[in-house]
């Protein structure tokens, strides 16, 4: 009985390690959404239209 339980525990532990090697797709999606919201500033969804005009100026830094 104890041997069987030890086997189960060992299998579970190995399985956990294996799972961690796989890419956590759901967590990645959540992380991506958080970053996209910040970069695109989606919280305050209505950007002032005035900002749109300075795109025509292009990137002065380059």
């Amino acid at each position, binding site marked *: 009985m104890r041997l069987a339980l030890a086997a189960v*525990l060992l299998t579970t532990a190995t399985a956990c390690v294996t799972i961690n090697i796989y890419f956590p797709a759901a967590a990645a999606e959540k992380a991506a959404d958080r970053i996209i919201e910040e970069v695109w500033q989606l919280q305050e969804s209505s950007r002032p239209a005035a900002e749109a005009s300075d*795109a025509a100026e*292009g990137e002065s830094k380059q």
Partner: protein
Amino acid sequence: MNIKRWIAVLLLAFSSALAAQGNLEIDSPAIAALKGAMQQRHARLAPLYAAGAVGQAADGTIALRDASSVPLAQRGQVNSLIAAENADRLALYREIARANDHPEWEADVRRTFAQRWIDRAQPGWWVQRGGSWVRK
């Protein structure tokens, strides 16, 4: 008695494994710097997205979709804007994989982002789906 202890250990192992998978680390200084740069650049890119000149490509980058909607004199600037954004996006994917101690996840991170940029693109923007450009 002994069995109970085994079960407790088992449950503990499970819960810690689940907790470890809840989130991806995205708070490194390198990631913060890239986010800041991209956020600033977005003010110039957003009108190009809206005009359809630039679209969200299927590979997690942005691409010049319709050069004719950009005046000739500004094409060089738009191209360097796109190049700068793409360099930051690729660096972001790499840094996220590295921050989580799995550099080999870079391609998966990129694939995830590619899908999310397209899903979250605003109405009127162009996105690449199945090899062709679609207006949202």
